[in-house]
């Protein structure tokens, strides 16, 4: 099986879907002539042309708004928001329109859009360009929220996101583009709303996704050397949230740590922990821990920034605390 970077896997998914379906087109800032600020759409403009790879003004409201409108009229737009921090400028379109146009009009409308965007910290971009507000978007019924942690999942989930008739926020992590992994060729469709066990282990269940999957895998290697075997469940989709494999794993290990890059308050961890207590209370052998970003706007200084972000050691410590 070919080994690809996350960037190549995402690019391949987009390319294949555009070849497959003429209704699929891309719009966003610097997606065309520039080739994408993360180089995901490099070569697309020359191959698919300016009608299907549309450079927009720097105006997030109308990027998502026009994508919503085009989707209503039968196209399948992939709107790129350069970073998830800029999605706040399009919040009304995402929350009040993408997520609601179908149910609010009694099912008369279909909004098959994908909002591809990039989140996460760790690149010294300062407080406004480094956020991981995934949970904010997962709050709203009507949206699907997907965030892959491996190249294979990135490809398979993006293809599914483009094909589903519902609006999808597809959140990529800025520091995962160089991560490599085996990616099946051609038609791979990973289902949205299905969690996946990425590592087997008997002692503790780690529930995580996206960048923190990679961090958790590293922590698992370190813990294995100390004789601790963790099982890792990758959520992959935050909405719909598939608790099946999480609960199943927890019933075997009776101990869990939830690892997320975003802030703890009202976050993904809060949701997962609450559901675990609701669905598997009788199996709890230790208080469930959360590992997450410190509750501060992320600083520019590298040392401070890394201090605020969850590290491998933080995960290892939390696992030992629940043992």
């Amino acid at each position, binding site marked *: 099986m070919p080994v690809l970077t996350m960037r190549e896997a995402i690019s391949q998914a987009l390319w294949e879907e555009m070849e497959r379906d003429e209704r699929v087109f891309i719009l966003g800032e610097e997606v065309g002539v520039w080739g994408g600020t993360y180089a995901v759409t490099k070569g697309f403009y020359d191959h698919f042309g300016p009608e299907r790879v549309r450079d927009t003004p720097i105006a997030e409201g109308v990027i998502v708004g026009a994508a919503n409108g085009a989707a209503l009229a039968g196209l399948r737009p992939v709107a790129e928001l350069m970073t998830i921090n800029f999605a706040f400028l399009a919040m009304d379109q995402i929350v009040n329109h993408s997520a609601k146009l179908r149910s609010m009009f009694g099912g008369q409308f*279909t909004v098959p859009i994908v909002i591809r965007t990039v989140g996460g910290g760790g690149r010294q971009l300062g407080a406004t360009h480094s956020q991981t507000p995934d949970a904010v978007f997962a709050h709203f019924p009507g949206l*699907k929220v997907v965030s892959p942690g491996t190249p294979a999942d990135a490809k398979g989930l993006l293809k599914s996101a483009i094909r589903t008739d519902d609006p999808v926020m597809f959140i990529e992590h800025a520091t995962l583009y160089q991560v490599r992994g085996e990616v099946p060729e051609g038609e791979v469709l990973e289902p949205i709303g299905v969690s996946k066990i990425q590592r087997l282990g008997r002692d503790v269940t780690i529930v995580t996704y996206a960048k923190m999957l990679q961090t958790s895998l590293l922590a698992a290697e370190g813990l294995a050397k100390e004789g601790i075997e963790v099982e890792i469940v990758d959520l992959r989709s935050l909405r719909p949230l598939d608790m099946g494999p999480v609960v199943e794993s927890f019933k075997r290990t009776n101990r869990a740590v939830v690892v997320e890059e975003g802030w703890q308050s009202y976050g993904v961890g809060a949701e997962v922990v609450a559901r675990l207590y609701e669905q598997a209370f009788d199996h709890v052998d230790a208080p469930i821990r959360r590992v997450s970003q410190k509750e501060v706007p992320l600083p520019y200084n590298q040392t401070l920034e890394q201090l605020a972000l969850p590290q491998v050691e933080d995960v290892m410590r939390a696992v030992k605390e629940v043992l």
Partner: protein
Amino acid sequence: MERSEKLRLYREMVLVRRLEEASATLYQQGKIGGFLHLYIGQEAVGSGVVSARRPQDRVITAYRDHGIAIACGMPARIVLAELLGKATGCSKGKGGSMHLADPSLNFWGGHAIVGAHLPLAAGLALADRYQGNESATICLFGDGATNIGYFHEALNLSSVWKLPVLWVCENNKYGMGTAVERASAVSEMRQKAEGYSMPSARADGMDVLAVRQAAETALEQVRSQGPFFLEVATYRFRGHSMGDPERYRAGEEVRRWQEDDPIGRFRQHLLGTRVAAEKDLDALEAEAQAEIGEAVRFAEESPEPAPESLFADVYVEEAG
């Protein structure tokens, strides 16, 4: 214009007026919840503009949408059923007054966030161009919407991409209770189109034939050259919504405008040009009145949405 078309327009405007009067009564009776924004006084804008379209042209508007829905061909009983939150409403009772739509009539809503449907209009027009359709999108909005970022983003994009959109600003002099001159840096909204290199025109919104003519001319431009901005001067005779104390305008001002009632003016025109006699117009008014009476009955007798419909249509497919 054919005589029959003039009479159709007259009947439609009267129908909208009677619909809105019936809605106000139903609201006061507590049968309509939430917000209710009446179109009374602005009927000539909706009927004039929408009647200029071809069937393939799309229409999208803001929350003062009952008159636009009727002009697009939605039956009054379906409008009223939605206002009463019934299962037989166009949006199955989930949208209410501000969210009327029927894509089969090429009517794309009824949108409740000021300015937010302007980007949607740009997207609808983009889809038509992408697919090679010979369609235009007509997007109506109030003067208040011209001060929000969406307006500028959408007008700019439509001009850069030469999208087939007719932007129609219904300038009724107030954004809720704030007069245009207290909210906008320029007094004519069409001046804002100049910043986007977009041609524009103004029309008298109390004269349905003038609106129709202006919209026809504008749509020709849209089809051949791209976006066009049409500002229509109008006035709402009622408050912004039900329950508006109207402290921001004098009763005398409202009375002056009411003397220039678009329906009264059109009636005088039809009589003066001998297109119709009193009895012809009286008969149309009686028809409209009867249609609204039947529509109210239909809406009131329609079933409530079933409790199990609560979870319907949130997603096309829950997972997958």
